[in-house]
């Protein structure tokens, strides 16, 4: 069941910059028969199945928001993005973004958005990056002064300067992604769609891109919609997340809200004083009450417990009273695990 919990303070203040209502996209897929004989039969008679990649989504995004759009592979993320960017025409439902219909007003609309697909580049493969930028300047009708000023800014924030004169095909993945992001933002779009911009990147490259996106979102009030499988992207960047699975919205709200709803399990990391204390710990905790524990090594244990059945205070009291310990850390359940639970079991 989709749940709509709006961000506090956003109700009815502004018109959303993206408004999707009952968005639906069906694909007619034809079932291929197996084997050579099957292929021959396919020539004469094909069986089609209609699949809904996006199955009735309602989503509002306010100007200046940084929304994380997540879901397992094949959930409908890319299809949603492609409808919001005007690449695909919805089967039914409607989208109004920046006051326009992404498909019908395509040429006007594309001037107000920037799009980055992590999987493939927007740049011309064989020529220097700067040449691609110059052509994009023409296509998007950016004045020379603006162009120079923006190039300077992006060059500084993304470290592009030494890349500008390299052909795109010779760039590393991280370098190419930085150039792609700069290319998508040259015309200062109001909305930016990023489809897995950090896929396959190392920590340093990821960090640079995140810092840049944060800066753009903060200083220019650019609305950013990001899909990713890397939840650290989400934790660092997004104030709000929407989770989609099998074409339907499962959750729409803050990350903390999701934690509060689903983070029933907390964990406590205990550093023991000596290797004999392990047994004592087991006795102290007892069995039942939803408490489980595991040895990470001889001197470290992690205790998992259900917050609804037992409080952290109670567990700590038990441990400190009966077991010699050096350190105790209370950890929140990692967001990965919460998301994993949703993907496999739903909300």
């Amino acid at each position, binding site marked *: 069941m989709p749940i709509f919990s709006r961000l506090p303070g956003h109700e009815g203040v502004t018109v959303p910059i993206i408004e999707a209502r009952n968005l639906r996209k069906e*694909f007619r897929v034809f079932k291929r028969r197996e084997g050579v004989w099957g292929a021959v039969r396919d020539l004469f008679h094909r069986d089609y199945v209609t699949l809904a990649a996006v199955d009735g989504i309602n989503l509002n995004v306010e100007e200046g928001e940084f929304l994380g759009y997540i879901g397992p592979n*094949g959930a409908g993320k*890319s299809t949603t993005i*492609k409808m919001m*960017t*005007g*690449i*695909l*025409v919805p089967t039914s439902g409607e989208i109004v973004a920046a006051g326009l219909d992404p*498909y019908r007003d*395509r*040429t*006007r609309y*594309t*001037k107000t*958005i920037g*799009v980055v*697909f992590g*999987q*493939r580049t*927007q740049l*011309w493969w*064989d*020529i220097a990056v700067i*040449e691609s930028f*110059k*052509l994009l300047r*023409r*296509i*998007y*009708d950016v004045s020379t002064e603006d162009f120079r000023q923006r190039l300077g800014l992006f060059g500084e924030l993304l470290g592009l300067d030494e890349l500008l004169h390299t*052909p795109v095909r010779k760039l590393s993945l991280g370098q190419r992604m930085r150039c792609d992001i700069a290319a998508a933002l040259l015309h200062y779009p109001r909305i930016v769609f990023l489809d897995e911009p950090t896929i396959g990147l190392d920590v340093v490259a990821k960090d640079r891109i995140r810092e840049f996106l944060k800066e753009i979102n903060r200083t220019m009030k650019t609305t950013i919609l990001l899909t990713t499988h890397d939840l650290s992207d989400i934790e660092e960047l997004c104030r709000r997340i929407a989770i989609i699975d099998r074409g339907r919205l499962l959750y729409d709200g803050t990350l903390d809200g999701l934690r509060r709803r689903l983070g029933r399990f907390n964990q406590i990391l205990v550093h023991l004083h000596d290797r004999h204390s392990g047994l004592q710990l087991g006795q102290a905790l007892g069995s039942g009450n939803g408490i489980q524990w595991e040895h990470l090594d001889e001197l470290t244990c992690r205790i998992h417990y259900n917050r609804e059945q037992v409080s952290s205070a109670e567990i700590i009291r038990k441990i400190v009273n009966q077991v010699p310990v050096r350190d105790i850390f209370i950890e929140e359940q990692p967001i990965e695990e919460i998301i994993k639970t949703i993907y496999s079991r739903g909300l």
Partner: protein
Amino acid sequence: MKDLLVILWHYLGQYAKTRLAYKADFLIASFTSILATIAGYGFVLVLFTRIPHLQGWKFEEILFIYGFSLMPMGLFNIISLNLYEFGDAYIVEGKFDRVLLRPLHSLFQVLFENFRLESLQEIIIGMAAVGYCSVKLGIPWDLTNLIEFPLLVFCGAVIYIFVFVILSSVNFWFEDRIGIAPPVYNMIAFGRYPITIYNAFIQFLLNWIIPFAFASFYPTVRFLGRKEFMREFYLIPLVAAAVVALALFVWDRGVRQYKSTGS
């Protein structure tokens, strides 16, 4: 319109830079392209060493038609490279996504994102053939002819290009790497000869189904003084306009149909 021309100019510049990145490739392509054109002429020459007349058409007349047809075809070849691999590169591999994300008409981008400048040689060789034959046949290059000729070349190129736009649009529905363009491309060769040498079926095909006769044969009939084809001659701009209108309609329908790739 002016903006589009400016962007077209920059697309050309971009293309030149790309080609210069691979100089040897460009030289080899130009060389083989010239060879292919000369081989085409060779065929006409061989044909006429055997038979002095082809159903009442003299060698110079046939060569004139052949030379003329190379010009719209050369223009078409310069522009059409992307159409030729449309199903493959744009539809199956999803390059069309990027096209739809830019604030220009999608067909404009597909047509002008890549060129095949070595086909310029077809236009030059075509001009040489037309020049030679018009001296031999005594065709006067008065003002009317000078204005009319480039317009006819333009109409011919428009017919070729937009016929292939229609064929490429089919890829929107049937996602296929190759499509039906290659066999039709080979049919261009049929249009280079007087239409009357063919049987009724092929004549009908070249006139009204895939109107290549209007791109290469009928444009020459007034220069060659063949009054019997004047009705078709005046239809040339109409046929070109009809092909463009149909192509834009089918293309637009196709774009609505575009399914993109999985990721």
